[in-house]
């Protein structure tokens, strides 16, 4: 009854800022960054990545309330970089890891396709999930065509 609308947990309101920086007044080189409409998925991954970086003295995150769709990440650095800069670096590193993983996944998936172990794409299953007959069957997705071709 009082539950917030489901989309409020992941859609930014009009004009809402996705990131808010609160500098720490009592601790040097520290800041708390509020990241709106994101959850543990991003928070925990960032925290772990930050802790793996040498210039970090402290990194921790929390989701203050499960019904409030934001998390806070607190960062203290050794002073060689600002907390924002390190956070940005952490993001960049993670994106790098992910794209390298993407490449590897793609290679692995293509090997599996060649092996003919009934590949993951609808194309290679022999089924016709779209229920179309003839040349423009479901297989078209797998051959590098896009939706404009239909």
């Amino acid at each position, binding site marked *: 009854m009082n539950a917030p609308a489901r989309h409020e947990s992941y859609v930014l309101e009009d004009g809402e800022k996705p990131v808010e920086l609160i500098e720490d007044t009592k601790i040097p080189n520290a800041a708390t960054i509020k990241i709106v409409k994101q959850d543990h998925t991003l928070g925990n991954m960032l*925290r772990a*990545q930050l802790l793996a970086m040498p210039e970090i003295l402290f990194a921790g995150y929390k989701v203050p309330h499960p019904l409030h769709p934001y998390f806070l990440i607190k960062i203290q650095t050794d002073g060689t970089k600002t907390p924002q800069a390190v956070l*940005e670096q952490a*993001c960049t590193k993670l994106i790098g890891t992910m*794209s390298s993983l993407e490449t590897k996944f793609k290679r692995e998936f293509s090997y*599996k396709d060649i092996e003919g172990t009934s590949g*993951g794409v609808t194309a290679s299953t022999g089924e016709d999930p779209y229920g179309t007959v003839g040349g423009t069957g479901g297989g078209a997705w797998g051959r590098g065509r896009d939706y404009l071709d239909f």
Partner: protein
Amino acid sequence: MQSNEDLEPTVRIRELKKDRVNFVLGNVDLAFANSLRRVMMADIPTVAIDMVEIETNTTVLPDEFIAHRLGMIPLISTNCDEAMRYTRGIAKEHAKFSPCSAVSFEYDPYNKLRHTTYWYETDIKGEWPLSENAKEEEAPRDDEPFDFNAKPNKFYFEVETDGSLGPQEVVMKGLAELQTKLANLILGLKSGPEHDMVANDVTVNGHGPAIDNPWTGGATWTSPANTSATTGWGGSTSPSRGGGASSSWSSQPTPSGGGGGWGTGANAGWGSPERRSNGWNV
């Protein structure tokens, strides 16, 4: 420092079937592997029946019962993020939008790290049979001391889909989605208060236009994958908000001003080229 830091992540697909993939992820940390799991389950847009108008119902089943079950039908959602403007959703809105029917995730099958404690009556080994994944790892000796610095390094996934997306699509879109989230965060950090963020476009999944997306074009982490039709980040409106099909029936004002209903405007339905200019960099 992390032991995984300097090593490249590894993947080995053990099994690929039309509705499932089983793979082993290595050299990443627990948080990373868990984020991948979470994003595959909850953040990948799919299509589902979301609004049902019943004119007459002569069945024994009540209207809402039928409407609910219609919603649960998996509909093929390949490229739905670029080819469709309305009635997409993610599992955070409703679980019916999840492309995964199950994701299993295991690490440390011998419990060497003691991340869990097994309850037992008399014999711990007899009462807790080892998982299949234990064959992938070396069994600890009985007198092996506890290594309190050890970190999990190998993660066993099995992603099972409901058929709305193939397992390959789920994994690749999951990775792309995580990258989008991170890219949007960098963007948010960079644009100070004076730079006005285009709030509407950096939304949910922030699927910006694929080709001229600043985070995939030219930067060091570029992976050509992101610009291809299959994995691209295509169209841009946020899924399943008031602007969609629902607005025409619930008489809310249509914020995005796009026709309403099942997309009646000139650009309706299958994403028209103009949609692309509504992204980040026109």
